[in-house]
């Protein structure tokens, strides 16, 4: 096989320009940033105070005074969405952090010690967690240890660990056979050093993409847990619980059910678009086939 004389990988500046050209990335980033901004702003300002009940104003449809209407306790739904965004983002984000923090080292270790007992143990551990339906683990943990945001984080985080471990191990294994890693071994470097200097930096693109995917799954998982009452507890607002509250009144006040659901959809959509866009930007082959 004769390789062509032209280089195959594009330089950094090209990457930046390509990023801006990728529509899904831009759209996704904008959507995601809107919610993050809303969550941050909610710390200093919300249109109405969500801790104050205003029964006389209950179940009002969207109006200039209340852009998204009010719920069954008279609380402004827009404010609830903003504060609820805090919960969703925090839970999903920290859960991804747990997944990366524990999963990536496990995956790197497994790949660096391929076919050893350690590798087998890590793989079996992964398979074991995967044998349990994700939400079931979360429900079990939050039920046994008590509901609440912290336990939700732990529960969702536990499922992220084998995902990142498996993804890291797979990518790292193929990198270990690459010739630049062989050269590093010939230069006398040990497994840990190679994992940190050569393998990990070449995994960052993959981890970023997977991270956005797990983030979006975390949002959905947190919503499901809150919906069944196992997530963040009152008075902390959360999108999932808003939907649970809305369910009984869905005939009377459909906006109560529509708005939080759409918030979830738009946030998850934004993250997924961002993830897709990042994947396209990072993989030069896809870019070239588009042009």
């Amino acid at each position, binding site marked *: 096989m004769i390789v062509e004389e032209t280089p195959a990988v594009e330089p950094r500046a090209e990457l930046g320009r390509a990023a801006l050209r990728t529509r899904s990335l831009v759209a996704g980033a904008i959507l995601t940033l809107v919610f993050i901004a809303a969550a941050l702003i909610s710390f200093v300002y919300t249109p109405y105070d969500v801790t104050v009940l205003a029964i006389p104003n209950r179940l009002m449809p969207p109006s200039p005074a209340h852009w998204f209407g009010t719920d069954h306790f008279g609380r402004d739904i827009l404010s609830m969405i903003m504060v609820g965004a805090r919960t969703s983002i925090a839970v999903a984000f920290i859960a991804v952090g747990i997944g990366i923090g524990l999963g990536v080292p496990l995956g790197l270790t497994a790949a660096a010690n391929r076919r050893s007992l350690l590798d087998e143990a890590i793989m079996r551990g992964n398979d074991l967690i995967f044998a349990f339906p994700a939400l079931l683990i979360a429900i079990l943990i939050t039920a046994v240890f008590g509901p609440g945001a912290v336990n939700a984080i732990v529960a969702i985080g536990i499922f992220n660990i084998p995902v990142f471990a498996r993804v890291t191990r797979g990518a790292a294994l193929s990198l270990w056979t690459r010739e630049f890693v062989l050269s590093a071994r010939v*230069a006398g470097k040990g497994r840990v050093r190679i994992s940190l200097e050569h393998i990990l930096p070449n995994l960052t693109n993959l981890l970023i993409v997977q991270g956005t995917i797990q983030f979006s799954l975390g949002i959905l998982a947190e919503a499901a847990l809150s919906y069944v009452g196992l997530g963040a507890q009152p008075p902390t607002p959360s999108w999932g619980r808003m939907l649970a509250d809305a369910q009984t009144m869905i005939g009377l006040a459909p906006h109560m059910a529509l708005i939080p659901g759409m918030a979830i959809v738009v946030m998850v959509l934004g993250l997924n678009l961002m993830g897709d866009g990042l994947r396209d930007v990072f993989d030069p082959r896809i870019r070239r086939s588009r042009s």
Partner: protein
Amino acid sequence: MSLLVVDNLALSIGDTPILRNVDVGVDEGEVLGLIGESGSGKTMTALSIMQLLPQAARATGSVRLGGNELMGLEEGRLCAIRGNDIGMVFQEPMTALNPVKTIGDQVAETVLVHAGASRREARDIARETLNRVGLPAAEFPLDRFPHELSGGQRQRVVVAMAIALRPRLLIADEPTTALDVTTQAQILELLRKLVDEDGVGLMLITHDLAVVAGIAHRIAIMRDGEVVETGDTTALFGTMHHPYTKALFAASAHVPHRHRRPAPGPGQTPVVAVEGVVREYPLPRRTPLAPRRSFRAVDGVSFVVHRGENVGLVGESGCGKSTLSRAILALDPMQAGSIVLDGEPLTGRGGASQAARRKMQVVFQDPYGSFNPRHKVERLVAEPFHLLAEPPAGAARRRQVEQALEDVGLRASDADKFIHEFSGGQRQRVAIARALIIRPALIILDEAVSALDVSIRAQILDLLADLSNRLHVSYLFIAHDLSVVRAITDRVLVMKAGRIVEEGTTEEVFKNPQHPYTRELIAAAPNLERAMAARQAEGRR
């Protein structure tokens, strides 16, 4: 009348022009060799003839097969022509076959799609065709799957699929590049036989002048999307007109200049002494209780490389040469034997002391995979400093890196670039700089020029010879391409099935091969001079 006439073919993909004014032709019973380096447009020409171009491609000009215009023909008629009147053989036999269908089904499919034959008739034709290409029924029943065949055997199946309906034109795009030398000779022989027996016109596309010299009646040379010269093979090699043709020919036959080496003095520590090395791989068990079998990739190999000499290690794929080189580089453990590098022994367990590792470095085959894409060249070239007791730092380190880059023909300022900013040949130069920087006693070059274009290859071989002369470093040159080994080594070892079957000075082994395998290898290797001499003899008759 010409079978195939391509007239003024031009092709562009999107805004990029790919082909310009391409004029080629093939007659019945004739072999046309289409030569070019990578990027010359030869594959695109073939795909244009087949009208199998990618979506964004725009082609103009004329492609006539037996007088009928193919350009602009509607897809249904083209499907009827492909496989029936024109057959095509591609480069990569390992991926050219559908892995989940049997070889019988895949060859029969050609027949079923065109001739409206019954299942039984199609299978009969498939059987007969597979016999013709050298895959007899006894060992290769129709229900074999592709993964059960070797590369050469798969390529024969691909040829069978292409010729099942006895097309008038056969296009073969680098059909033997991915194959071993001996297998290559067999496939070329098969193609020649088909041309003789069926009178089919063959367009053989390759980058290797030697391959084409032996088999082609006429040659067309392509460069940058244009045909620069065409003509009868013998005439062309006798009198080359276009400067590119001359350059290509010179590069193919290039032999770098090397100094005469003084014979090694007695008692001098050899650069590397390999003694009885055995390397085994465990194989999966057939049943859970069966004893574990293993495969011996290296079976008791011993040799020595003396100071000041370059040694070549030659063999086909699967002979164990890469496994041996990995054992010497202390990347894998040995099951038996010993390796001593300039006096420093290896542990044998896949590890080596810093002292031992300092004595050797490596240059690999793939110029793209050899480097971490995220590091700058300075960091890449300086990586072996890790092995020194007192690695240089700061300005001293930078100076040494710059010196190494200049030694290999690059510029000092290249140290600040990223590796993707360089071409394939330049990357190999960086790899050589990295290998040289701590002045090891031995550099192992594992197929280091195999992936390069012929003209670039000649330059790199020159560089290697020059460095060897100046810096007194020894090479262990591993290759499957005999001509390359001949050009640059003093002694050569021939390896087969894990053993060294012949050993001697390079000239001796090439002129007077003793072992039957060596003879087979040398006879099979396409040799430009030999082919030329044969043609000239033929021409004079």
